[in-house]
């Protein structure tokens, strides 16, 4: 327990001094995608639902937040909440149609909706179409605190991310989260115990979309622009990559996955098209050799060290 506290304290110190040494925008990008990947992880890792269209929540929210900030003197946190709210409502509608389907059907329905949303965003006037939305201002936080400077803004993003990730942690470790894990394990059994699995999956879908929306809203304020890329299917694919790379269904795995992918994209940016190929190769290696993902494999190794010999037989059957 104390070890955990120590790790948390170290992480906190590292997070606080990081922008002194690392470009703040890169750090903020990592945080945004850590939230996004966690939102995806909530859905796939804990509820067993594979969404192929998570970019619709990310992208829409980015545009809504950007539009709110550009067109009104609204304070920053309200703009973020506004974007989040729209993606939440969107999920409530999409979920009505998608949630009764499972597996590949669910994935295809979410993809279809996501393409539809992409098209709407392309055609809508307020988004700026193919040019995207530029020059999104970072309005004052609570209407008081100036956060225009990226160095200062980093701490806002850090605080919001900490809240979001705590919310994710809370959901996963709540009474509701327990039922979700049971549904992922054996849905018909949950039904036979008198609960309606689709209601739980519906709520999980909405919660996941809110978090994805928050990630998109933050991203719009970090980069100060929103583009169609944010709502495009490669973003939906990238979040899957992050989650699998880090470790599906592990608490922190997808966050690490997000960091790895963001840093890789940054490092490989000079290679142009080759960056995608490198990403593909990495994903292939992970899927073939490290099925549990980065954090999943480390956790498995630690578990092996902790209970050697005696328990190893049990592990083999598990």
């Amino acid at each position: 327990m104390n070890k955990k506290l120590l790790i948390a304290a170290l992480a906190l110190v590292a997070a606080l001094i990081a922008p002194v040494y690392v470009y703040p925008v890169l750090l903020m990008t990592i945080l945004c995608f850590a939230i996004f990947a966690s939102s995806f992880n909530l859905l796939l890792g804990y509820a067993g639902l594979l969404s192929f269209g998570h970019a619709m929540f990310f992208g829409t929210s980015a545009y809504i937040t950007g539009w709110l900030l550009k067109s009104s003197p609204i304070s920053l946190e309200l703009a973020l909440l506004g974007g989040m709210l729209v993606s939440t409502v969107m999920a409530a509608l999409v979920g009505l149609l998608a949630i009764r389907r499972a597996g590949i059907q669910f994935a295809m329905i979410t993809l279809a909706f996501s393409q539809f949303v992409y098209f709407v965003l392309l055609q809508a006037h307020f988004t700026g179409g193919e040019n995207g939305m530029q020059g999104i201002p970072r309005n004052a936080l609570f209407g008081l605190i100036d956060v225009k400077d990226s160095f200062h803004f980093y701490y806002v993003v850090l605080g919001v991310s900490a809240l979001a990730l705590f919310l994710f942690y809370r959901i996963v470790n709540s009474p509701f989260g327990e039922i979700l894990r049971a549904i992922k394990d054996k849905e018909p059994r949950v039904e036979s115990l008198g609960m309606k699995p689709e209601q739980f999956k519906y709520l999980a879908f909405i919660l996941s979309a809110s978090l994805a929306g928050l990630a998109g809203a933050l991203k719009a304020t970090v980069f100060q622009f929103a583009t169609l890329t944010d709502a495009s299917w490669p973003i939906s694919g990238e979040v899957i990559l992050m989650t699998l790379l880090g470790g599906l269904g592990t608490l922190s795995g997808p966050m690490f996955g997000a960091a790895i992918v963001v840093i890789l994209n940054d490092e490989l940016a000079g290679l142009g098209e080759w960056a995608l190929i490198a990403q593909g190769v990495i994903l292939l290696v992970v899927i073939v050799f490290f099925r549990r993902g980065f954090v999943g494999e480390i956790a498995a190794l630690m578990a092996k060290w902790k209970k050697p010999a005696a328990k190893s037989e049990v592990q083999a059957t598990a």
Partner: protein
Amino acid sequence: MSEVAAPARAPTAASSADNILVAENISRRFGAFLAVNDVSLAVRRGSIHALIGPNGAGKTTCFNLLTKALPLSSGRISFNGKDISALRSADVARLGLVRSFQISATFPNLTLLENVRVALQATYGKAFHFWRSIAAVKDLNARAGELLDQVGLAGSRDLLASELSYGKKRALEIATTLALEPDLLLLDEPTAGMGHEDIEPITRLIRKVAEGRTVLLVEHNLSVVSTLCDRVTVLQHGQIIADGSYEAVSRDPLVRTAYMGEEDA
């Protein structure tokens, strides 16, 4: 809980009060195949009732119809006098009709305690509380522990269900089912795939949990049926061919023909 039916009542009133579950002319069709054909069945309150029959007789389909896991093609089912024909299984579970599964239906990646707690959560009213810590349902741990104790698993509450042996998984499943305090327990082949050493304890366990409730089970093992059950219904080709005590049914010529060669299995 389950009221003991008064022995002397007018026949019409008695039929609804004495029988916890009544199926009238239920059928289920899969395309052209009539898996269950016009079956009528009454399960007497407080009894242990078995549904038997040779392979492919439609037992499992019939079972799935009774638990509402499959919709009816035609017919009517009532439970405790209430028409449940149009309900789904989550609804009938809440009314007190809870089933187990032929393929062990535990949650493999949850601990034993969590397995039972999930079932307890069904009626606890906090299942949608995503903003609260799991400590919000801590109160349920004691009851979950009792239920595990009842089936002899109290010592392994923090193991993952996937780490249990087959027989113990069935016991865990029964504990999970009991968490809903069902009036009627439906067990789908509780001893299927079990070795001799597991059959005896599970039979004892079923007898124990049957106290104060009604049990309907589908079972292959006739020796289990003969020692456990008050009443036996025999299905063949989706239809009932006999109904009565084990002794009466086993003397029935139709049943003997249906089971020819399987009698001593």
